[in-house]
């Protein structure tokens, strides 16, 4: 799922491949508050909700993906 979210950020949020690194934050990727709302809306397509407030709080991309994966798993009853 990390790679899918990465692809989303590159195709819809003008993030370039070189910007990604371990522990990268959404702020470092250039996302502002409205981008976080847009990202939250787009993440719903993955099957679970992460609010823009949670994105702002978590900041680290790996943590965001981890939360998204957990919620998707709960939703699928795994």
């Amino acid at each position, binding site marked *: 799922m990390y790679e899918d979210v990465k692809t989303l950020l590159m195709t819809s949020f003008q993030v370039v491949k070189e910007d990604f690194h371990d522990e990268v934050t959404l702020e470092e990727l250039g996302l502002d508050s409205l981008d*976080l709302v847009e990202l939250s809306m787009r993440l719903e397509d993955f099957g679970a909700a992460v609010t823009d407030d949670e994105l702002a709080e978590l900041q680290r991309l790996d943590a965001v993906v981890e939360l998204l994966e957990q919620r998707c798993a709960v939703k699928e009853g795994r």
Partner: protein
Amino acid sequence: MTRNPSRGPAAVICGVGAWLPPQVVSNHDLAARLDTSDQWIRERTGIAARRRVGPGVATGDLAVAAGELALKSSGCGAVDMVVLGTTTPDHPCPATAPEVASRLGLTGVGAFDVSAVCSSFLYGLATATGLIAAGIAERVLLIGAETFSSILDPDDRTTAAIFGDGAGAVVLRAGAPTEPGAIGPVLLGSDGTQRDLIKVPAGGSRDRGRAGSDARAALADHYFRMRGGETYRHAVERTTEVARAALDRAGWSVDSVDRFAAHQANARIVNAVSERLGIAEGPRRLSNITRIGNTAAASLPLLLADSAARGTLRPGDRTLLAAFGGGATWGAATVVWPDVTALIP
């Protein structure tokens, strides 16, 4: 959602006018007194400048100026109804439309205000369409006008950057649904559970008798408040949804839309909606937000008049209109743009 009258004459656009107050407030002007910058405002809103009225100028004054131009554009000064969409009426009571009508030499005609914040023009368009279809009116002057600066908190860098003053108007006459300029299906919607997204807390009956508020808090409550992030989400979702529904009702495919006239809320919202609809960046997306900001109820008629005058909206263009506003409210409509001369100084 509302259904449209299926019988009676169609409402056909036969005149268009708009008026903007001359004072320009640039992002640099705002940055000189607020914790903001030209770059910050442009990146978040797409706005570079907005207009402000001078002292003593009210919404009714802008409405008269735009209304006069729309009547002149229609080639006929007579209408039998005046509908004014506004968030910033001259007074809480009475409505502003009757005075506007009289100042336009129309004393005696029906006149009233419509209040749906940024969706007001589409709510007014639905009203005018219904009045004409029902035979209650033959010609309607529909105005959207705002002095939004009158309710802005001068210290709120977000709303001060987004909103501007201005007015736009159209004249609608009874005609045939197949004519250019005939308003197609108009769809409206609302969700009162989202009433706090966009709000002026004080000044209404809900506010009377509130205990414990000091004078400063009371003053602040008369300012316009907007929850930006939540508004973005609802605006994008609802505008996309209602625009698709209006296209569906009109029997138009997205690819057949020549021009998308979205309420100029914020360039980021317009872009997000356009992308979801599949309307690519370029001339199909009408835009004037960079120059005049978000003018709320005046936004759509101003965009139509401005675009027609600049030649970016041409006769025969299949045009989709959509808006989201406080309430929450939203709406959309379709029209094949008519051969009218838009008057905008």
